[in-house]
């Protein structure tokens, strides 16, 4: 298929950016979106132009590195997939595709479609862990009984890959879905309860320091999340915060 790409080009973090139009031909429906971007970049390099910078790593939908706001949606028009798992068959021949970086002041653009999601790392470092003794006497995981329902919910929350689609898609650039997934995965398990109070306070505090917006419960994040993280996690985090503040 033949497509018209309108891509955000930005020299570096300090330069102003703009949308630039690129025609591209001979794209197969079975290609992934990133493969299409690779082909575009090959063509740009052959012409002596600067290739489009974009984040990617595993290309298996599990690392959370790829981003892009494609045709008005984080990770594009498909559901429950990251950009690397988005296939070109989702688009029609002759279509114009708008490609922008994830936008939020807390995710500054580094170059073209690459954004700095270090804010998520700092939130994670503020409390997204459990302090366990790993000096050779770690107890067997099965020695601590955990209700199956709780284990399943914790696993669901833990599938968050921290890609930032929730922030990118939220009209308020809120990071609540990400933070709540990280808070929930520990809050649901006995190992996480020990530091539960400090965890939620510190992670929410860091989220506020990073300048993310407020959650207004539109539910857009849940729809666009490639891992289907539920809004129930946000409710759980709010309960955790109320308990911690009480």
């Amino acid at each position: 298929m033949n497509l018209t790409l309108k891509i955000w080009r930005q020299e570096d973090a300090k330069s102003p950016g703009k949308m630039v139009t690129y025609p591209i031909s001979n794209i197969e429906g079975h290609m992934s979106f990133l493969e299409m971007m690779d082909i575009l970049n090959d063509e740009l390099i052959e012409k002596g132009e600067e290739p489009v910078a974009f984040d990617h790593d595993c290309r298996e939908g599990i690392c959370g590195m790829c981003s892009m706001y494609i045709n008005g949606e984080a990770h594009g028009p498909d559901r429950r997939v990251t950009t690397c798992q988005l296939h070109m068959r989702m688009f029609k021949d002759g279509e114009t595709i708008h490609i922008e970086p994830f936008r939020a002041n807390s995710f500054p653009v580094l170059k073209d479609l690459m954004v700095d999601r270090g804010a998520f790392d700092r939130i994670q470092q503020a409390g997204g862990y459990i302090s366990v003794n790993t000096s050779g006497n770690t107890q067997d995981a099965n020695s601590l009984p955990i209700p199956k329902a709780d284990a399943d919910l914790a696993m669901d929350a833990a599938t968050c890959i921290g890609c930032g689609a929730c922030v990118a898609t939220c009209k308020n650039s809120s990071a609540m879905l990400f933070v709540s997934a990280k808070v929930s995965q520990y809050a649901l398990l006995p190992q996480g309860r020990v530091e539960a109070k400090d965890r939620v306070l510190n992670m929410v505090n860091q989220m506020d320091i990073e300048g993310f917006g407020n959650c207004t419960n539109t539910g857009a994040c849940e729809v666009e999340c490639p891992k289907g993280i539920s809004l129930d996690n946000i409710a759980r985090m709010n309960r955790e915060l109320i308990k911690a503040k009480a």
Partner: protein
Amino acid sequence: MSKSKFTTIGRKILMALSGFFLMFFLLQHLTINMLSVVSPDMFNDVSQFMGTNPVVQFALQPVLIFAVFFHFIMGIVLELQNRRARSIKYAYSKPGTNSSWISRNMIITGLVVLAFLGLHFYDFWVHEMTVKYGGGDMSGLINPNDLDSGYRYHEELVAKFVDPVRVIIYVISFVLLSLHLMHGFQSSFQSMGVSKGKNFIKKFGNVFAIAVPALFVFIAIYHHLQH
């Protein structure tokens, strides 16, 4: 530990609590207003009680006024913070694919309701305050010098709805209030951390959001047609 007094979540919880209070007040207001249709005498008696009871006037009324101001000031503050979180907007965005217009535009429906409150306060509250505390007339009578003249509340209420323009403004405002409540009701529960019974809360919230404003509209139109 959190350094700010209120976290972003804390502010949302306060929005939800003030929202709950205002929704409860709406129900109470509606119950009294329905009396104006069912029994004008009872409406007059209750209005006189509410208008002169010191607990209502000097304890509940200030709380209500505080809740109204708090809810809209906090709503505007949150909206401004949210807008600041993304200085460069998307060139192309399709928010309709993942969220409802109502949930994204609480500030618009809220500001319309706020403008309506201005008119509503001017229509009834300012008048009541002027008569009672400005003019010193606590009798509630049509003619304060004539004990047999009867209470003025029902008569004044009906008089307000003679003007069709006012009725239309009221109807439009209540439609916007309905939209505000449709998201606000369920959103308040989510902010408070309630996730059990989500579907029931949503359905009940929709019934509340439609029924309460619809009955207010009914009262306005009823009095307009009855005058």
